[in-house]
């Protein structure tokens, strides 16, 4: 009896050790980033490194906002990600509605094709995409970037929205039709309110993807005033002496919006229907 209790206790103990390790390995690098971003230059390079800054300062953030193009990059990121979400959602909501509510020839084939393109990696698309964009003459524009993000996100948003629309019972719509509502009214008053959580969650996934993108922006955008955050921050690296305090402050400022949105959709992720929702 005693031995059994001991065994159970040690299993619980191991479980907690594992859980603490999992939390720490994920959180520590971020905490270290936060710590570094508040350190004055002398402390950043101090040995031994201290976890809590002795003389915390906003100096790194101040320099980030005034001496670099950070605010421009931030604005660009918001604009491009926002537009990409808008376009993606309108197109994929319509597409998902079609895939679940109408019957027509080749519907399942189209769904399969979409799932196939989900597996295309950005590097395979971006090289020809870049050449084509140059041919059309829209290189170095936010428009090209929005199109690129949309094409990149569409397969998975369509797939997610399709799964979501499938869970909305058709009877509700049919009932609205019985009561004399037209298809459009049934859509606006019955389907959309029910689909709203799914639409919001999918939008956030799309936003995170667009916000985090590096490769499309690196290749399609050349002028500094059009760059988004990931590329802009990478360029902070190019100076001869790396200003780690400044870079960590920048890293924190990019992470915060992504994390806020992540917290908003986290429960969907863990509940499972969004498993595999984010590509990369």
């Amino acid at each position, binding site marked *: 009896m005693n031995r059994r209790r001991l065994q159970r206790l040690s299993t619980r103990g191991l479980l907690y050790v*594992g*859980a603490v390790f*999992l*939390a720490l*390995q*994920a959180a520590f*690098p971020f905490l*270290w*980033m936060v710590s*570094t971003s508040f350190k004055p230059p002398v402390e*950043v390079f101090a040995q031994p490194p201290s976890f809590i800054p002795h003389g915390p300062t906003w100096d790194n953030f101040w320099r980030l906002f005034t001496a670099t193009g950070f605010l421009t990059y931030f604005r660009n990121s918001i604009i491009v990600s926002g537009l990409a979400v808008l376009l993606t959602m309108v197109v994929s909501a*319509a*597409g998902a509605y*079609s895939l679940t*509510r*109408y*019957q*027509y*020839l080749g519907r399942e084939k189209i769904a399969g094709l979409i799932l196939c393109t989900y*597996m*295309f*990696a950005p*590097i*395979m698309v971006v*090289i*020809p995409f870049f*050449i*084509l964009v140059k*041919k059309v003459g829209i290189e170095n524009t936010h428009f090209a970037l929005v199109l690129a993000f949309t*094409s990149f996100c*569409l*397969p998975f948003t369509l797939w997610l929205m399709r799964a979501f629309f*499938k869970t909305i*019972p058709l*009877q509700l719509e*049919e*009932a609205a039709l*019985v009561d004399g509502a037209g298809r459009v009214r049934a859509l606006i008053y019955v389907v959309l309110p029910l689909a709203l959580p799914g639409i919001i969650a999918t939008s956030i996934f799309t936003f995170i993807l667009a916000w*985090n993108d*590096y*490769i499309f922006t690196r*290749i399609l955008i050349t002028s500094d005033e059009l760059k988004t955050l990931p590329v802009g921050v990478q360029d902070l*690296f190019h100076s001869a002496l790396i200003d*780690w305090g400044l*870079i*960590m402050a920048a*890293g924190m400022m*990019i*992470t915060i919006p*992504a*994390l806020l949105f*992540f*917290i908003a959709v986290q429960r969907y*992720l*863990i509940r*499972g229907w969004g*498993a*595999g929702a984010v*590509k*990369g």
Partner: protein
Amino acid sequence: MTDMSKPKLQPVVPSGVRSTFVLVTAKLGIMRRATCIPVTRPKRREQLTGFLTIAPALILILGLTLYPVAYSIWLSLLEKHSFFPQQRFVGLENYFYLWKDPEFWSSLWLGTVYSIWTIFFQVILGVAAALILNETFVGRGLVRGIVLFPYMIPTIVAVILWKWLLNDTYGVVNYWLVALGIVWEPICWLGADHIMLSTIIMSIWQFFPFVLLSILARLQTIPPELYEAAKVDGASAFRRFVHVTLPQIRGILFVVILLRSIWMFTKFDTVWLMGEGAGAGRFIRTLPVYAYMRTLTYYQAGLGAALAVIMFGILVVCTVIYFGLFREEADIG
């Protein structure tokens, strides 16, 4: 009307719905009102609206993903400068060039090494972590949230974080290793000897939450009775894993390994950003990085496209073999 919202009566296929609908309404005695609704809707109009609503998505996917990928096959047969419009048809010359190019073979090798190690550890760690997070303990929700952080942040942030942690002079990792007496002198993590190892560790850290998430979602749907039955039979924890858990997660494991393999083999940003500015970049010049460099460092768009096509070809062949090897799992997944 209340009858209709019972979950039992909710088939997924529209045609099924109609018959159920008719059935239900017949039961309720309102058959006359119901029959004229969906059944008599003009078929052709339905088809047209269906096509029109999927059309924008289809056009965007065809035009912006499939067409570029097809175009890259054509592009790989050209000699073309990335920025100027001149182009010349050279047939398979780009491929012959790559065949004799040692850098291509080295990038293929480095890419394979990188993908195999990262995939292997992602899957092991992801499954182990999912098993832990599927148990009940205090603070489980919080840990589940925190663990997913690394997967959600921009790659550039993950890379600057790790470059700072691994910095040879001021990095906290080296400081601890020396302070704890594990090594005598700081390790040059981003130097030629260790950069591959650093990149692999960092990639595992960044991407194993994807495996965790997918497996955890599946674990939550395994009926607890299965475990109870196994416990009654006196199966140890290990045997319960092998005989109960593993068969249940086999299908999703198949899909996850497939997706992770595709994405790790074509991983660009993590590897490129780790190598950039470190001076040892060529020791992690994997196939995607090499394709990028041919296009945008040497401006040889044709060669870049040829590399992308080769990458695509390798993936297709491997996927077919993979499906052949694990036919059973493919059916479940």
